């Protein structure tokens, strides 16, 4: 049975929208971080779907790159969050506006 490409894309769009909504609405920085991962994976899904459809490897290779970068980003991002928490004792992004003014 062949799943049509549209299903993959709709699923990816739904996941991406959830990611964006969470990113915009949530204040906890760890949640925001997770929503970024969600968006990345939604994009990965479209890549893989198109790669399968066109029988092209480049889309799948791109996914590996995205995953590697996401892992690196997670490492750096979590380190920043820990450092931030040590300084500000909070994970609420609305209170992190040191650069303002």
């Amino acid at each position, binding site marked *: 049975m062949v799943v049509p490409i549209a299903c993959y894309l709709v699923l990816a769009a739904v996941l991406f929208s959830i990611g*964006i909504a969470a*990113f*915009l609405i949530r*204040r906890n920085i760890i949640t*925001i971080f997770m929503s970024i991962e969600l968006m990345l994976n939604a994009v990965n899904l479209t890549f893989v779907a198109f790669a399968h459809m066109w029988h092209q490897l480049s889309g799948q290779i791109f996914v590996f790159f995205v995953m590697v970068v996401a892992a690196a980003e997670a490492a750096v991002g979590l380190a920043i969050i820990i450092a931030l928490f040590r300084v500000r004792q909070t994970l609420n*992004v*609305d209170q*992190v*506006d*040191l*650069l*303002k*003014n």
Partner: protein
Amino acid sequence: MNTSLLWLIPTLPFAGFLINGTIGRKLPRALVATIALLFTAAPAFIVAQLWIFMKSAGAPLALTVTSRPWIAVTGFQVNFAFAVDHLTLIMLGVVTGVGFLIHIYSVGYMAHEEGYWRFFAFLNLFMFFMLVLVLASSFLLLFVGWEGVGLASYLLIGFYFTRDSAANAGKKAFIVNRIGDFGFLLAMFLLVAHFGTLNFSGIFSRISATSLSGGFLTAIALLLVLGAAGKSAQIPLYIWLPDAMEGPTPVSALIHAATMVTAGIYMVARCHVLFDHSPFALTVVACIGAATALMAATIGMVQNDIKRVLAYSTVSQLGYMFMACGIGAYSAGIFHLMTHAFFKALLFLAAGSVIHALSGEQDMRHMGGLWRKIPITFWTMTAAVFAISGIWPFSGFFSKDEILYQTFISPSPLAKLLWLVGLLTAGLTAFYMFRLWFKTFFGESRSNENAHEEHLAAVHAGKSSTLTLEAEPDSAHAHGVHESPLVMTIPLILLAILSIIGGWVGIPAALGGHNEFAHFLDPVFANAAAPAVEAASHGLEITLAAVSLLTAVLGIFFAWLFYYRKPGTAAELARKFQPVYSLLDHKYWVDEIYGRFIITPLLGFSRIILSGLVDAGIVQGTGAGLAATTRGGGWLVRRIQSGNIRSYAGWLAVGAAAVIAIVLFGHNALPH
């Protein structure tokens, strides 16, 4: 004769200026003076060589030297070019000779002044520009020298720049001269437009080739007259010269008596071809000259500052020269220019010596009885006073008589009137010069001893705090009135000799001479519309000379009567003719009239329109408006930078949505 030596004549003083102007501050005074003198003596030496060459060559002298193009555009070219003819040679002799003597004198006169190096640097700068002016063979290069001497004059008038009056006098001289320069510039533009060149030879040969007269030639000539009136202190632009006396006395002698102020006369004489083609302009020149001569002489009669008397006398004598040029007797004008350079430089230097002797006193009311105390100054000044009054056989007699005679026999309808004005001026000149002579050297000493002592004390106090050297001259100062040092009296003596014999080169045929001076200039003024000298009888010339001599003696007699015999008479007359005296004392209120009718409206216009509307409104408004727009825009856009991560993310999302929307639907809406 190596003509490239001509380049050296002006550049040497310029080198002196550069040396003294840059490192002079650190050099000892003796070295500064040596440099200045050396770089002034060398051009004088070269000029002497020129004279010798001219004598040996015999033929009319015409040396030229030309550089590569200075300004070259299609159809118009100017080079740095110098030309020497007989007229230039006389001017060169006067400028370098008198200039060198005054440099020597300055070494003594300025010995105790601050800014010694500055003074000599400016003096050398002046020599440079003056020599460029007389050597120039085109209007443009002449204008370079013309502006340059104005600059040097400004710098030297304002030499004591900490004194307000000196700074203001400098500005006044500069601004009044700007009015004249405006005329000169317009004249040059017209010349370029009509002849396509600014070279003297090119323009004058084309003018003399045509039979044109009047019209645009008159316009050019009148504009040049405006320039000459500014530089040579003629009506209506003479007002700067009396104020220029704020400068040190050697400057007054060199720039404001002997050389720079004669530049206007030189220029008119140089352009005689142009003026000969415009009888109207010539008449204007003659009338301006006569009016200035008389007016300045009347003002000079009532001045009390010794230098101001001399300043008005300079204006008056320049008027004489103008008058001579105006009736076409250019060589007579140049002759008077030369003798005037001798005796007026001497008068100023001697007056400086008097002022020096009295430790800075310039008011003649506080002088008197000086002739025994400063004999060399007295005798040299006496020679100058006799010369300017036109007493035979002093130099002034011959040059002044030449002018009066030429005026009398000139075909101009105004000739007799001009002659009468000239004669009257001669009488007035003799009167006020002898007034100065009697008041300064004879009678009771009226020096205010207390003020004098105080002044001395101040001078000494100032000296001990500022100067460490010069212990020796102080002992001379301590004796009060004292004769000047040798370095000052030697130039006085040399100039006195020149003032006596300087006129003998132009003894007219009627008095047994050959009028060599006029014949010397014949090659330059050959085609000038000079009155036919030979036509008039010698008897007339001798009669006129006798009449002018008599007038001068009459002036002397009145001066003797008023200021020596019965010293109270003058004050009594002043009381009796209060309105006239007041009018003269206030210099015909000219400064006040100019102030009321020209300067005040101009100032008002500048304040309200230019400063208020244009500057504050438009110029500053534009800047302020731009700044306000930027600041307002910044204030608006700054709100986006909230520092809130979620708001950034929101903008990012909106932006992404917008990009997607444009990509998906935009290409339908956009025109292809």
